[in-house]
């Protein structure tokens, strides 16, 4: 747990917002680094890590005379993401965003402004909610500044050090519409977006390495109000957990301000993970202040229908479609489908079912007994054979679980693994003898069972399991008990 932050006038007095009264409105801007070999406008490597200032060339350093040339693969990946997010891919242009800060050597960032490559898309979350995507545009990443002195705090730093390895790396900024209404939804959105980005090969999706960065716009309004409240943008969110905490903190801060009769001011705020709160970074500047103008060194980008349709035809099946398929073809529940697809086990389950395995039992195993990352390599035929053995009673549920774990770890034939463990179907005559002995040794419990006390069923089944070291099938035992009770 983080230490309790010191109280201050803007500190929320409550940590949770009364959601019967207030509605939280969230819109996310996600920056993803595109998985290219080189930078967006130059042939220096796009490579995370490594020694400072080793991935540099004249353009990265903004040296006089250097000119940008657009990376074809960055465009390809941008189109893939755009199509995966149901965007319209359009003719686009580049613009200069001017600001003075040493993280860009040239005092401007090349971005897309009035004509972005992707517009008007959507993303479907696992629970079926559809979130609008306003745009997804190309721009270059910045260098990394390190503040020295003053305990690493920006405002007290003695000087700063700059590494331009990251400067110029291709980014896609994905601007979501303010359609999210809770911290959980915000997390689900980023998680789903990450799955899509990884599925289409646009990004490795590593938040901890900065491949995926989230800026979060939060506002609050009273339920029933039509107008959005004034929003604040929160930066420095480095994990899904931070995102949820930052949303809840910021919403509470804004509700407290309004409740106290104050106004929320449009600001950019900094999430402090250790203190668990947001602090003022600066008052929000308007886009006018960046003096955007068309980038004179780059011409129009117009991929055209041939390129766009080729990319569309090559797109892999996306997570939302894979979930739908599992629900439709195997009768999976919505949450079960989400979990199985997240683990990448949907193909395995479909193949096992196609090989004759019972769908419900197959999905139950995927949900509860296949959390191991190696499960994706499980042979569908062996998996199906195991499920069949379980269904025809030659393995109990407990035994099936043991065999399955071994299949995941070492592979092999489920029949042989069962034999090695001595998992053989109990002869019912063996069980008969055991049960008769139990009944005569526990007359009181037996009377309760006969009187319809369901609670003692577990006692008898447990005793049989103990005596057979788990080999007996619980369902068979219960059936034999019922037969005797008449």
């Amino acid at each position: 747990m983080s230490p309790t932050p010191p109280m201050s006038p803007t500190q929320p007095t409550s940590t949770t917002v009364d959601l019967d009264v207030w509605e939280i409105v969230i819109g996310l801007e996600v920056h993803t680094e595109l998985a290219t070999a080189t930078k967006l406008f130059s042939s220096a490597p796009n490579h995370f890590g490594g020694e400072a200032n080793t991935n540099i060339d004249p353009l990265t350093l903004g040296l006089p005379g250097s000119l940008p040339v657009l990376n074809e693969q960055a465009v390809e990946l941008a189109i893939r993401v755009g199509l995966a997010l149901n965007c319209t891919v359009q003719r686009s242009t580049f613009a200069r965003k001017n600001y003075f800060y040493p993280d860009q050597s040239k005092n401007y960032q090349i971005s897309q402004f009035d004509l972005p490559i992707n517009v008007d898309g959507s993303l479907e979350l696992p629970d079926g909610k559809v979130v609008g995507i306003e745009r997804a545009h190309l721009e270059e990443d910045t260098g990394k500044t390190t503040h020295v002195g003053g305990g690493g705090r920006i405002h007290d730093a003695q000087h700063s050090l700059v590494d331009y390895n990251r400067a110029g790396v291709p980014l896609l900024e994905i601007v979501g519409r303010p359609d999210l209404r809770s911290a959980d939804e915000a997390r689900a959105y980023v998680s789903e977006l990450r799955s899509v980005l990884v599925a289409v090969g646009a990004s490795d999706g590593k938040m901890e390495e900065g491949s995926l960065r989230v800026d979060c716009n939060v506002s609050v309004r009273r339920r029933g109000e039509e107008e959005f409240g004034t929003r604040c943008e929160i930066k420095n969110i480095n994990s899904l957990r931070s995102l949820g905490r930052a949303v809840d903190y910021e919403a509470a801060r804004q509700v407290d301000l309004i409740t106290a009769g104050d106004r929320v001011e449009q600001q950019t705020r900094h999430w402090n993970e250790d203190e668990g709160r947001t602090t003022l970074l600066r008052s929000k500047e308007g886009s006018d202040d960046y003096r955007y103008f068309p980038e004179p060194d780059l011409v129009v980008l117009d991929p055209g229908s041939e390129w766009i349709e080729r990319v569309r035809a090559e797109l892999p099946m996306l997570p939302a479609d894979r979930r739908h398929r599992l629900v439709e073809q195997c009768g999976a529940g919505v949450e079960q489908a989400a979990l199985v697809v997240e683990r990448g086990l949907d193909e395995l389950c479909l193949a096992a079912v196609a090989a004759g395995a019972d769908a419900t039992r197959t999905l139950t195993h995927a949900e509860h007994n296949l959390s191991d990352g190696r499960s994706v390599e499980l042979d569908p035929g062996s998996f199906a054979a195991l499920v069949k053995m379980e269904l025809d009673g030659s393995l109990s549920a407990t035994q099936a679980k043991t065999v399955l774990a071994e299949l995941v770890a070492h592979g092999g034939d489920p029949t042989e693994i069962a034999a090695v463990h001595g998992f053989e179907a109990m002869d019912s005559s063996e069980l008969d003898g055991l049960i008769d002995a139990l009944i005569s040794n526990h007359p009181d419990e037996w009377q309760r069972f006969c009187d319809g006390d369901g609670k003692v069923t577990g006692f008898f089944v447990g005793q049989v399991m103990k005596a057979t070291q788990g080999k007996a099938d619980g369902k068979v035992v219960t059936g034999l008990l019922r037969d005797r009770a008449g």
Partner: protein
Amino acid sequence: MSERITTDDVAKVAKLARLRLRPDELTRFTEQLDAVLDHAEDLQTLDLDDLEPLAHPAELSNVLRADRVGALLDRDEVLASAPQAENGRYRVPPVLGEAP
């Protein structure tokens, strides 16, 4: 002077561009920028309905490069020409706040 552009507007843009202007320069540039706006207004009177908006004066599109790594600069050589460097990085004066 016209109301289209004021010396305050010019002072603001100068500040954003980190330019320090003397009062006489501020007046002169405001007059000059106002003349540019005159020219823009002249253009506004033309009937351009049948013309596609022009995104770039060069009528080219899709100038692209293959995603292949090329030549790099040597770090030590580059940093030798920097005013200050430290641990393989450019050393710069302290900056207030984070990047926009």
